[in-house]
């Protein structure tokens, strides 16, 4: 266990430093700076520009800025958002629940459909269902998120009028944000219909964000199940006279899940990347949309801090998945 953590840290620390470097330089490589963008078409005199940049500390040598960024990270200080004048960490934390809610619904949606679909495809390998599912999942996997989102909006929101186009809740309601999770807050609020509104706002973004993970989970479940179904112990389970449900749903699935759970866990990175686009399409007030807005405003501190936070979360989740892999795999957990 100790060695496991040590080797992981040996990889994580350099990765983390790399992320800080990329986050720091990426936003500075874009043309324009925060003052120019704020001034907009009115423009700003060079003297005033230099003065304002100096106020923000952007006149210091670039390496000094980078090290003060690192120094800040070590002390849990990511600076202050230039636009909102709020600490970046605080900004991030207020928006984070919205993204978690969306990503969580997307992954649940993907797993609820992808797991059974993959299992059925494996059991009925070579059937029409199998071929159809694999075809659809290949399409889903290569679906451009932006195009897919707009398509769904046009169909379900614009044409059919079934779902709202943007946001997390209808403007008719006012909900106290106790947990930050709209589904929970709306459920416990006194506002009638708020929960229904929250759900209907979630549907399309969930589908859009969940499509790629759904395709991946279905394919991986299918291939993991196919492999496991050919194993000797599955034949033993049959030889015991067990029902198909026990043979497939208990003996085979339990083994297939070792790989599938890992695959699902590794989708978190894919989800957060997808969330940036999805949140932009649906004006979902999460960290994805916040990142895009901050990039457009050249909000240096918000962007670099946001990227570092997102990357840290992905790394932590991956670490957790590694750890879980050991937990659900008896061959690793109970070594001889």
């Amino acid at each position: 266990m100790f060695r496991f953590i040590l080797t992981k840290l040996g990889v994580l620390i350099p990765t983390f430093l790399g992320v800080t470097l990329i986050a720091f330089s990426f936003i500075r490589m874009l043309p324009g700076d925060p003052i120019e963008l704020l001034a907009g078409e009115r423009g700003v005199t060079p003297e005033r520009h230099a003065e304002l940049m100096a106020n923000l500390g952007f006149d210091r040598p670039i390496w000094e800025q980078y090290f003060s960024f690192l120094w800040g990270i070590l002390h849990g200080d990511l600076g202050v958002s230039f636009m909102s004048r709020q600490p970046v960490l605080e900004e991030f934390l207020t928006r984070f629940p919205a993204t978690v809610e969306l990503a969580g619904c997307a992954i649940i949606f993907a797993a609820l459909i992808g797991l059974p679909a993959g299992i059925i495809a494996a059991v009925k390998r070579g059937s029409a269902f199998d071929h159809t599912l694999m075809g659809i999942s290949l399409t889903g996997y290569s679906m451009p998120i932006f195009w897919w989102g707009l398509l769904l909006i046009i169909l379900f929101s614009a044409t059919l009028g079934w779902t709202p186009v943007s946001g997390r809740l209808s403007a008719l309601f006012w909900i106290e944000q106790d947990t930050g999770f709209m589904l929970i807050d709306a459920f416990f609020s006194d506002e009638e219909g708020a929960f229904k509104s929250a759900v209907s706002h979630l549907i399309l973004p969930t589908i859009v964000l969940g499509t790629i993970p759904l395709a991946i989970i279905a394919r991986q479940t299918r291939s993991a199940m196919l492999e496991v179904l050919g194993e000797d112990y599955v034949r033993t389970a049959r030889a015991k006279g067990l029902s198909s449900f026990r043979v497939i749903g208990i003996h085979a699935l339990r083994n297939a899940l070792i790989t599938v759970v890992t695959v699902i866990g590794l989708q978190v990175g894919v989800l957060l990347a997808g969330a940036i686009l999805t949140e932009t399409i649906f004006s979902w007030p999460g960290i994805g949309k916040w990142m895009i807005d901050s990039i457009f405003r050249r909000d240096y501190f918000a962007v670099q801090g946001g990227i570092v936070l997102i990357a840290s979360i992905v790394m932590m989740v991956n670490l957790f998945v590694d750890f879980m892999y050991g937990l659900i795999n008896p061959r690793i957990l109970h070594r001889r």
Partner: protein
Amino acid sequence: MSLLEIRNLSVEFETAHGLFRAVDGVDLEIDQGEMVAIVGESGSGKSVSMLALMGLLPWTAKITADRMNFDGQDLLTISQKERRKIIGKDISMIFQEPMTSLNPCFTVGYQIMEVIREHLGGTKKELKKRAIELLGLVGIPSPETRLRAFPHQMSGGMNQRVMIAMMIACNPRVLIADEPTTALDVTIQAQILELLGELQKKQGMAMVLITHDMGVVAETAEVVNVQYAGQQVERQDVKGLFNAPRHPYTHALLNALPERATSKRLPSIPGVVPGLLDRPTGCLFNPRCKFATDKCRSDAPDLHSKVLCHYPLEDGMPTNNHPGVSVAEGNS
């Protein structure tokens, strides 16, 4: 009527190269307390024929038989659901690879108790008591603690004992042991065979022992079926088989026994069992038979008094007007 009776069982697999007949006209008859051995080299269709009986072959397999009866029930027409009530309970099977035949994700105790619960039921406490009793019966030390062990925490021999415990848990009337010792160390092999023999006597089970080892047969079985390339080439009681083998293949198998060897090298029959693509015409054994004639190369033999040969042996020499040993230069 026998407890288990199989007549003219054939199994064909759909493969990319067309139909492949892995089992071709096999008979089996076994009664309470009897021990029948099925012998033959690897690839002779021994496993496939017994898996067909158990209903464990993949859907690519087409099974035909004139009869397949167990205790008055017709296994050919039985539904999946009814078959599941029989296999694992009245007819059960032990496999060749103990290390991969147990589920790595569940404890030994779980896997044993599961089969008892499925067929006989019982409270958790009863199941556990029975599982401990079974582990003791198959000679596993400190059964209470072993109950919580995972298969990978134990040796191959121990796993095979667990497998045996699991498969005799519901007191089966027929136990099929498919090369139960092939994957194990030589020292363990004898122990496992001894255990199986003891259990068979104690429980009065009928037992089908699949093996490619004639030496094992001599010590255990009463009746022997010799199988080659899916066909049953000879059936005899064990004494007759060892004293007067009638099929050249049986003869060759016996000559390949280490204790009968004349040279230092471990003897074996030259060549291999034909697979899907190299099936000869005529008798399937002819390319490896030292008595093969032109007739053997062109015509498939019929069963002559339980021997599938044009020229059944007598005292090691072919009968039935064999054109003479001079023709029979073995082609290797």
